[in-house]
């Protein structure tokens, strides 16, 4: 069996081929130009960031050796040979971890609570007043753009060292992020139930309660649970600026070169975060499953 490929006559083929080559060439040029821009930007940035590859090459061996060093005790033995020595501060660290979790919990619940109310004022389709909406939106934007640690630093001045400053920072940031997410959820709802309820002459809050709330509740819960996961991580570093939680001991151990303490605290944090992630993702899947059944 032989196949016959139809081939255009040379005279017709030439211009087509030329056009194809030209288009490929122009795309290549385009890509190269973008690549050149990126490379130039990288070079300028590396001047500004004092990048020195020679310094890196000279010292890079310290990175793996630091990581390895984390897993050896003061007496030169690997950490797993003497668990009680490795986790010598366990009671104190567990207490601080508990404090971290409480900070994340209170921060998430209170932040989400405020966001829950304000999101209805910030959503374009249900907001009662245009000015209020703009004010709430801008306020939320500021709250979520100021980095959490900066907020914590400012709160530490006014509330003193301790978990209070950290919780407030988490609350403010959570509020900023969730107001935006919640408002977006509300903007995507089906407006028919809302119209139905408002056609009965009900006041605004009743319309929201029976028209909008049932549609958004599961999404809200899911976003809040996700935020809780993130807040546990955030609360764990609040101690870096003295705002409570396990971060205080971690940063002290790193600064004072207590290598085995660093790894012990990191292991505890990683385990806690992993367990929390697992639990919340289970809860979220149950929630989605429930919704699927209904």
């Amino acid at each position, binding site marked *: 069996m032989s196949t016959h490929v139809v081939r255009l006559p040379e005279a017709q083929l030439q211009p087509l081929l030329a056009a194809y080559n030209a288009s490929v060439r122009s795309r290549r040029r385009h890509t190269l130009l973008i690549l050149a821009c990126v490379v130039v930007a990288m070079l300028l940035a590396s001047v500004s*960031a004092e990048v020195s590859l020679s310094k890196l090459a000279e010292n890079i061996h310290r990175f793996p050796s630091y990581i390895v060093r984390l897993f050896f005790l003061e007496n030169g033995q690997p950490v797993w040979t003497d668990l009680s020595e490795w986790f010598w501060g366990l009671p104190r660290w567990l207490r601080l971890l508990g404090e971290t979790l409480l900070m994340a919990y209170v921060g998430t619940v209170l932040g989400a609570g405020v966001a829950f109310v304000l999101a209805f004022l910030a959503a374009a389709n249900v907001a009662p007043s245009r000015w209020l909406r703009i004010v709430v939106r801008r306020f939320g934007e500021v709250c979520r753009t100021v980095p959490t640690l900066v907020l914590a630093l400012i709160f530490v001045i006014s509330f003193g060292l301790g978990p209070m400053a950290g919780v407030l920072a988490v609350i403010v940031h959570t509020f900023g992020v969730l107001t935006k997410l919640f408002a977006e959820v509300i903007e995507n709802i089906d407006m028919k139930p809302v119209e139905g309820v408002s056609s009965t002459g009900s006041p605004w809050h009743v319309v929201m309660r029976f028209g909008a709330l049932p549609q958004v509740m599961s999404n809200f819960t899911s976003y809040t649970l996700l935020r809780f996961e993130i807040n546990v991580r955030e609360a764990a570093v609040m101690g870096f600026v003295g705002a409570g939680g396990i971060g205080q001991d971690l940063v002290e151990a790193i600064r004072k070169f207590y290598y085995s303490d660093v790894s012990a605290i*990191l292991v505890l944090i990683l385990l806690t975060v992993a367990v929390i992630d697992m639990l919340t993702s289970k809860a979220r899947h149950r929630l989605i499953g429930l919704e699927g059944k209904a």
Partner: protein
Amino acid sequence: MSSVRQRYPEHFQRFGRDRFVMAAIGFGLFALLIYAMGRLGFFDGTLLSGLGRLFEIVGLMLPPDPGSWAHVKIYSISLLETVAIALLGTLSAAVLALPVALLAARNVTAQRIVRFLSRRSLDTIRSVDILVWALIWINVVGLGPFAGALAIMTADIGSFGKLFSEAIEAADRKPVEGITSTGGSHILGIRFGILPEVFPVLMSQILYYFESNTRSASIIGIVGAGGIGLHLAEAIRTLELQQTSFIVLMILVAVAAIDFLSSKLRFAMIGRRGGVAV
């Protein structure tokens, strides 16, 4: 009405079992909240006295004022440094994460053990906070912005590796099959079958991270890894509150500008519909 009630008793029950369970959970969560607030010192007066001082401090912060032109110059330079740290960290992380992501993607790497190892190492990298990476890199290359760039790079390899491998796994298999059917090798299949398809997604993720890294880069200075965070922490600790609010304002403007630019670039590259899956 009563016949309807008899036919559908479950719809007329006032408190079903589900409702009872929900109420119990809600009550438990509320009790935990109150307990936690008590433990964290919400009820012992710290909150009220602190709030008074907070208002005082916010009052002292206004209006934002850098103090002198010399300060403005220093702050602008370190703001540029912050953006440079974010740019370097993001791009180098993207370049380094791509091969790892290929190793971690199911449709590229057949060996289960390689995939498992690369995934677990990405998970571990991701779960260590960027500030911890910064402190570790400071031990290696010394204080300064270079350590910051390396910290952002390390932390982002973890996130990019995960996001990229997910994007690669979501890619359509047909182009790869087409290339393999013409006799192309596995590598060629990846190069011409998968990469062109996932490239726009990767670009939009990189741009998104560039923006969020600018925010991270502005705080790693607090632990000494360069950028504007150093000046910010100093201004707060020495209670130069007007300078503090000026620096915060500068960061907000810079982040907003980068947000604007990166969303423009993203739309130019992938069209309006391409969203970021984060």
